[in-house]
């Protein structure tokens, strides 16, 4: 492994959340983005080729080293780490709507789910999975919500574009971006 790869590995080890390419770039001003991409690739292959228990993962618009899935049970059973608690159905549905409709106001989420989402929304905010991203025009200028990078981290997604496309779902309906299309 060359020095840049070692440095990238050490940096990813020291960070408590995924590091983006531009954050990694501050490690060495003389190295180009391509150099960093090469280093990341070398690291990924090194872990893979030597058969490590950890792997390089691309998520939340950045890179992070994670343990391989197959060791999860053994590690959890030894009580070395606890798995995060699961989200409730209400939280998942609310997240689903926000993920696809963002930026979206509370009223729209409630209209789709048919229930008040005040409490759920607050707890999603507390967990850092959604946040206020702006305000709508119009009466009362309601707050608009969107998903955060913590949401991407929780799901292990590299970016929002990795959410399933609406037309891939088995129940096809109106596109979230253009509600005006509905029922045409």
């Amino acid at each position, binding site marked *: 492994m060359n020095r840049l790869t070692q440095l990238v590995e050490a940096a990813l080890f020291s960070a408590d959340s995924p590091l983006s390419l531009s954050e990694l770039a501050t490690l060495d001003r003389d190295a180009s983005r391509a150099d960093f991409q090469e280093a990341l690739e070398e690291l990924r292959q090194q872990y893979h080729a030597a058969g490590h228990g950890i792997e390089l993962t691309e998520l939340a618009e950045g890179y992070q080293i994670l343990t391989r899935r197959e060791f*999860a049970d053994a590690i959890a059973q030894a009580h070395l*780490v606890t798995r995060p608690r*699961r989200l409730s159905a209400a939280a998942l549905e609310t997240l689903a709507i926000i993920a696809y409709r963002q930026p979206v106001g509370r009223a729209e989420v409630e209209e789709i789910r048919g229930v008040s989402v005040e409490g759920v929304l607050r707890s999603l905010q507390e967990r850092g999975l959604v946040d206020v991203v702006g305000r709508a025009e119009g009466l009362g200028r309601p707050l608009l919500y969107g998903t955060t990078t913590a949401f991407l981290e929780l799901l*292990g997604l590299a970016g929002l574009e990795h959410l399933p496309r609406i037309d891939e779902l088995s129940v096809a309906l109106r596109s979230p971006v253009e509600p005006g299309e509905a029922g045409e």
Partner: protein
Amino acid sequence: MGVSTVIERDQPFVVELETFSGPLDLLLHLIREQEIDVADIPIARIADQFLDVIESLGLNDAANYLEMAAWLLRIKIQMLLPRPFDADKWEDPRAELVRRLLEYEQVREVAQWLEGQADLRSGQFPRGWMPEEPEQEPPPLILDLGQILVAVERVLESIPQPVLHRVVPRPLDVEGATRTILAMLDTRQRFDFTEIIGPEPTVAAVLSALVALLELARVGRVRFVQRQPFGAVAITGESTDATS
């Protein structure tokens, strides 16, 4: 068609309802349970079944369910109305319900996908031990007024009804009542209790005034005068030479 289970009256629906995330979820459950085509819902039957469930529901979360029940009943009635001769002009009253159910199904599908992803991800652990950050300037903080204002509004949004509807005895404003009484004493020798509390007083105002009066009487600042049994009680300043 498996017309079974959840819908029988003697079943503990309340327990079951805990497992539904909302009225649409419950409705979809009834529909799936009976393998009904979403596009052609036997609305009368489904509405009745939905009502049965609501009937045995605790009132906690019921508002949203009741709203749905009312809607179902309205559709049921609309379906009973005679249709116009021109069939093309007849708009199925169930159309909006179907649209919302389909939309909700889509949401559920995505929610399930998200759950699966989160499960997969939770099988991978990040580094558990984090080195202490080297001693140096704390990281710069991004903070602007806009964020504070948005936070204020979020706080305001989060405290609406619970605060308004909380049943808390209003604290008595004895000090305020005392000030009022002393101010009145400054200008007048004698006045009625009703003059202190004004027209249409609140219970808290009456009690506050009463406590204030008793306290003032105790320290000798006022006296109470009652001319006859059950008559109006007049309040006079201590300096006044009054009967008691």
